[in-house]
């Protein structure tokens, strides 16, 4: 028991599960076999079976989660590689980012409220589109449950990775710039990880979207939430 509860075992176990989940997805590329989704399911099952608490697992796999931070820094590279093009078109990009960010915060809160979400749940959803560390900070600031936000953020990221490209085609958005930016804005690093290998342009604009929406949401959400809550009283 002490062995399976050790840092080395839990980290190695999580890695092996992810590798196998990727092999499964390569063989059967169906959306429910999304590697992150499958790995989460297997790890949850494993913890429930062995009785290891999530708090314990989370502490011992900090070694894995930590690498999210340098990965976000690394997105500066594709961002830089497209910087000249971004500078040429900054007005349109800023409007797309700003409207995307605000519509995300407002729509998720209003829809959740209309479907009967409690106060702390809709507050936990406001920052759902941005990367985990930012989203948890925003949720704390506006009075939701940060741990719930973390799980929702990962789910939204998986959703964006799964449906992003198909949805873009469906609404007729065909250029790499808009596809990348929309997916990065809506589904942060997980959507970005899926779309970035398609082309450097996809990667750059997705990185731009995720970075900008992170910054914008951190600033905008705490400011507009009181106004959104006023709107909710009229619904």
């Amino acid at each position, binding site marked *: 028991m002490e062995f399976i509860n050790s840092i080395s075992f839990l980290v190695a176990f999580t*890695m092996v599960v992810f590798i196998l989940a990727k092999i499964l997805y390569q063989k059967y590329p169906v959306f429910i076999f999304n590697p*992150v989704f499958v*790995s*989460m399911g297997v790890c949850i099952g494993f913890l429930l079976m062995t009785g290891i608490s*999530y708090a314990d*697992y989370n502490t011992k796999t*900090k070694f894995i*989660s930590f*690498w*999210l*931070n*340098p*990965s976000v*820094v*690394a*997105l*500066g*590279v594709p961002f*830089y590689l497209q*910087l000249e093009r971004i500078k040429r078109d900054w007005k*349109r*990009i800023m409007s*797309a980012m700003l*409207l995307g960010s605000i*519509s*995300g915060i407002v*729509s*998720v809160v209003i*829809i959740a409220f209309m479907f009967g*979400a*409690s106060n702390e749940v809709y507050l936990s*959803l406001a920052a759902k*589109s941005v*990367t985990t*560390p930012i989203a948890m*900070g925003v949720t704390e600031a506006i009075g939701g449950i940060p741990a*719930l936000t973390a*799980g929702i953020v*990962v789910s*939204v*990221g998986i959703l*964006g*990775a799964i449906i*992003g490209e198909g*949805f*873009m085609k469906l*609404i*007729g*958005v065909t*250029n790499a710039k*808009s596809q990348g*930016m*929309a997916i990065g804005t809506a589904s942060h690093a*997980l959507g970005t*990880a*899926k779309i*970035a*290998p398609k082309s450097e342009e996809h990667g750059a604009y997705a990185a731009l979207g995720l970075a900008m929406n*992170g910054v914008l949401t*951190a600033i905008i959400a705490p400011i507009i939430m009181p106004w959104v809550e006023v709107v909710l009283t009229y619904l």
Partner: protein
Amino acid sequence: MMTKFTQLAFILAFLALGEGLKWVLGVPVPGSIIGMLCLVLCLEFKIMKLNWVKDASDFLIQNMAFFFIPAGVGLMVQWDIIQKEWVPIVVASVLSTLVVMAVTGLVSGRK
């Protein structure tokens, strides 16, 4: 040409720089985002060369999805809330994700 080890050290140094600036400026933006913006500036102003970070950055970006797993597993402790309120959570998350994608994608231009 830098070794991969040195490249990784550069990226971690930018992360530390971002955390440091966050602490000094007291802004509610994560250090990783500030570090990323600093890296872009240093590359743009030729303080850093692209091949000092390129390989390590490609490696991290390619494997980024893996680093989310522990946070995702955290959903298991929110089971009570999810059981009670899964309808608004799922409906709002899905619809709002589509809204964000459509608004950003269409404003930025279809072609």
